[in-house]
């Protein structure tokens, strides 16, 4: 069985460490905040200018002046700070964020990522994604392993315009946890009930399959 969005978020959350400053992109990455283990705390950075993003507000406390980078209304946690977008990207570009989680259209064996533009469709813009992947040492990409048409998103070479070059080392798909090493995807874990063969079939880029590929474990 391929992972649900919630399971994907849950698996990413296993990579968190106590005291991590984390930037979560739109979509599945946002859900990671719901699965922070009880015995640790992370602070969420939102690139519009907020460190210490909290949960959504109630109807009573909603405030148009308090949003995240996805333009959703949010709250702050205790110990939060708010600053300009220049300061926010100083944090990001300067490598101060411990972990960035974001979605993608494609990732390739050289750690390239394409996530912002599909030519022939309209160009909406890259927002902060290019800055985020350039500034982070530690990035997890979350996406489905293949498109709805069954085409692999784990490629030898990204076909779309890049968001970042040589910056991705970890990918979580609905089928597998993979790490990128020496020009290949290395299959580290598979989703419960998903066979290695299925993953091989749906991976276009070079894939290294160790002798033993454990199933993911969810608490």
């Amino acid at each position: 069985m391929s992972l649900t969005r919630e399971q994907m978020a849950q698996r990413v959350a296993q990579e968190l460490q106590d005291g991590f400053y984390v930037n979560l992109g739109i979509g599945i990455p946002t859900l990671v905040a719901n699965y922070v283990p009880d015995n640790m705390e992370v602070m969420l950075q939102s690139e519009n200018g907020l460190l210490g993003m909290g949960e959504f507000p109630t109807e009573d406390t909603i405030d148009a002046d308090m949003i995240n980078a996805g333009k959703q209304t949010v709250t702050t946690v205790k110990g939060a700070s708010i600053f300009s977008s220049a300061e926010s990207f100083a944090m990001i570009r300067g490598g101060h964020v411990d972990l960035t989680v974001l979605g993608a259209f494609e990732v390739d064996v050289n750690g390239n990522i394409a996530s912002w533009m599909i030519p022939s469709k309209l160009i909406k813009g890259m927002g902060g994604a290019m800055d985020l992947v350039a500034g982070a040492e530690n990035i997890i990409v979350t996406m489905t392993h293949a498109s709805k048409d069954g085409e692999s998103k784990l490629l030898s070479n990204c076909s779309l315009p890049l968001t970042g070059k040589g910056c991705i080392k970890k990918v979580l798909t609905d089928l597998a946890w993979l790490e990128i090493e020496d020009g290949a995807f290395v299959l580290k874990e598979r989703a419960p009930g998903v066979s290695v063969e299925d993953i091989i079939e749906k991976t276009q880029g070079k894939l290294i399959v160790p002798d033993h590929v454990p199933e993911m474990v969810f608490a």
Partner: protein
Amino acid sequence: MAGFDKVVASYEEAMTGLEDGMTILAGGFGLCGIPENLIAEIKRKGTRDLTIVSNNCGVDGFGLGILLEDKQVRKMVSSYVGENALFEKQLLNGELEVELTPQGTLAEKMRAGGAGIPAFTPQQAWVRQLQKAKETKEFHGREYLLEEAIVGDFAIVKGWKADRYGNVIYRHTAQNFNPLAATAGKITVVEVEEIVEVGELDPAHIHTPGIYVNRVVLGTFEKRIEKRTVKSAE
């Protein structure tokens, strides 16, 4: 005190001097902290052929989006412009030009413009795919793009509170690009929700010192919410 009194009586006065073909830097992120009444005044005024530097271009019918209705905008410099059908139409028609700029670079270009730093190297050089033949420099084994600062003929800014000297504070994440745009306008206009007495703002809490501000105008704001997300009842 007259010399430091930046308060003007009307939005018309606030935007005096804006002419066709000028470049405007606008604060705001999405619809949060946008100078909504100053934008409305530009629409009323009918100024055309504008270059607008702003992270986003509002939505259909609100924010900078309303300047598209009468085709007042020639070019947008933005990081993300995906919330606007009219924008898409004019872009495809060739009626509108867009210069996409990564969000962090855009923020830093405004800061550099205000700070008298003509150029800096925020991004690695492969980003060049986006850009017309910019120069690159190598540092620490990586190639970087040399990016140039942006200044505006006008900067339009949304503050929370200001005093008559033009000292401004912003509310919550409505800060975003506002203090950056404020530094980089030849004429910087700030619209605010409240004008307080000089001395009321703590010197250590002021986000935009009055030295950057030319005009302050008092307004009322719709503050439309782009994505209303609330906690489910527990």
